[in-house]
């Protein structure tokens, strides 16, 4: 059984301009010890999906529907205070900007201790010992001496390590990482991704990795969910998404990336910009930008259907299977030509 099973999740914000359907019918599951990457551009609803599961959405007027079954319990149905007990203990979260995610007026020792003592009745000394242990696990040099330091005394990469230490301090079953390396330099990103990989191996936590970077997905994911305009476009194992993509949006993302074969050529970007979630297009939400658009796409919402002959590879597109396979093969030769 999956560790987390999200079914038909919807998060609608009531704003002065109308209802923003930030998440509109998203389903996925995360297996124990595996990594699910949620990919999409800004505003695709990938962060809101995870914040909803954690009960961390801000704003007063929100409608949430659907289920998020974590280890047999629907997180969306339990009282707030019960959900709070899951947070930081069984499900942790790290965020994009390590510079602002730690409280500047408390020492990191205090912030790490807080995470321990919120969920366990331990003494300060025990919590401190645990904090040091975790700082060592995330390879922070001289861990013992750094508990009394404040966040501004750490570099960006080191702060993200502190965040990871804090997230894993109670040995959670699930770690949600929201763009954890986006604000970091590429060599620091490599350090953090490597660290997360090793920690996943040691701690056995499942990871939901929210990212816009297909490179990061390729490096780390077991399963991938591609989101477009608050809805899932495609979902499958990483091989499905990179080598047998079945949705024109996924194709567009892969084609947008500059790589060896595009040198001297124009890139093939997706035309236009993502739609407003106040008033999304009818039918398939991708149809105004889709080069393969057909009449049916403008009126009928495509089913998030299983790809024939696959395990659990789904895509929401009206195109026939033959065209999809043909396009997928073309894209593979176009974009991954340098991979031989």
């Amino acid at each position: 059984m999956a560790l987390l099973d999200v079914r038909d999740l919807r998060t609608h914000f009531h704003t002065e301009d109308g209802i923003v359907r930030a998440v509109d019918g998203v389903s996925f599951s995360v297996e124990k010890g595996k990594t699910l990457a949620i990919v999409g551009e800004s505003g695709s609803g990938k962060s809101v999906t995870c914040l909803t599961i954690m009960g961390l959405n801000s704003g007063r007027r929100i409608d949430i529907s659907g289920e998020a079954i974590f280890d047999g319990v629907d997180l969306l149905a339990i009282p707030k205070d019960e959900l709070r007990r899951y947070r930081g203990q069984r499900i942790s979260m790290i965020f994009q900007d390590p510079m602002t995610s730690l409280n500047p007026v408390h020492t990191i020792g205090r912030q790490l201790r807080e995470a321990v003592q919120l969920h366990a009745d331990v003494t300060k000394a025990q919590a401190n010992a645990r904090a040091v242990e975790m700082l060592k696990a995330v390879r922070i040099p001289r861990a013992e001496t750094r508990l009394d330091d404040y966040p501004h005394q750490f570099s960006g990469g080191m702060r993200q390590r502190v965040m990871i230490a804090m997230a894993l301090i109670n040995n959670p079953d699930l770690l949600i990482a929201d763009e954890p390396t986006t604000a970091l330099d590429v060599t620091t990103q490599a350090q953090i991704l490597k660290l997360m990989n090793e920690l996943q191996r040691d701690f056995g936590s499942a990871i939901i990795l929210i990212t816009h970077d297909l490179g990061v997905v390729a490096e780390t994911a077991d399963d991938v969910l591609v989101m477009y305009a608050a809805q899932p476009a495609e979902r499958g194992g990483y091989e499905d998404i990179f080598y047998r993509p079945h949705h024109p949006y996924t194709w567009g993302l892969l084609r947008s990336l500059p790589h060896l074969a595009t040198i001297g050529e124009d890139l093939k970007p997706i035309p236009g910009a993502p739609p407003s979630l106040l008033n999304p297009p009818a039918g398939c939400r991708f149809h105004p930008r889709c080069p393969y658009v057909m009449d049916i796409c403008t009126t009928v919402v495509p089913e998030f259907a299983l790809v024939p002959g696959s395990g659990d590879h789904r895509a929401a597109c009206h195109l026939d299977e033959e065209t999809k396979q043909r396009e997928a093969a073309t894209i593979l030769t176009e974009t991954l030509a340098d991979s031989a």
Partner: protein
Amino acid sequence: MATTTSEETTRPAPLGEELLRVENLEKYFPITRGIIFQKEIAKVRAVDGVSFSVRRGETLGIVGESGCGKSTMARCIMRLLDPTGGKITFDGQDITRIKGNDLMRVRRELMMVFQDPYASLNPRKRVGYIVGEALQVHKQGTPKEIKSRVQELLDVVGLNPEHYNRFPHEFSGGQRQRIGVARALAIRPKMIICDEPVSALDVSVQAQILNLLKRLQRDFDLTYVFIAHDLDVVRHISQRVAVMYLGKVVELGTARDLYEHPKHPYSGALLSAVPIPNPRRARARVPVVLEGDVPSPINPPSACRFHPRCPRFQPGTCDTIEPLLERKEGSDSEVACHFPLETWPMSDLRLPADSTPR
């Protein structure tokens, strides 16, 4: 999409002629201390002896991580900052210390596109004003001429000329960056310095802007200095690439050489850190992960600044003799390293046991 007017393509494009030359450029920011009289106690060596040249019509890419000095360097070239030392020659003229009208004249030919399309456009001004401001400042025509020129520019960058009277917030991120490009193009510059122009954009929109920049380069005979931290983007758009680390250029070569045969261990580590959007290949390689953080530019490491993090570090050489940026035999790239990489890709950057400085 837009079309190009014929008169703008008539300028000759003698590729190879040098348009910009930067020699030994230095920019130090003083750190001061004192109770009444401020005395300098240290300096941040943001740019510390950078030399390169850019030929007309080419794109020079500059890559490096935060704090390597790439943006400070760009601002020095634009003369938004005054260089501490060195010489900048643009189109045959020494612009290192020019002021007033001379500087104004140079700024007509040298424009800049910034990273953040949200912050770099004045939210209270209409697009027509933003794009046409430079034309007004440099008195390039009557209001009517300026308006038609602005509409033409909006068309060139793929925006609807009818949107002349809109405000920046009515546009998406990608469209705003197009406005930024139109603004830079307004007085037909010879060179545009792009400082992380696509870093804030989503991939699909990033590709649109990269295509736009390449098309404009062809159509208007533009020369670019293209600064970015995304190595794939830089490779895509540049003919030559400079890699910067802590205020210095550590390697400079053609994009092909640099990406296929990096010579400097830092370039190698940087390339190996870039995630590859191809799972099989990404998982097959053994990445070279650099340990630690970039040191402070206030008190940079001696000699080769990369030596404390370098897998090929040799005591007695790397920490005492500063490597100069020079061409090594059998390579077209210039590299500042005593022990450059011999092969690539390699899973291990460590030095062969019997090596001596070359």
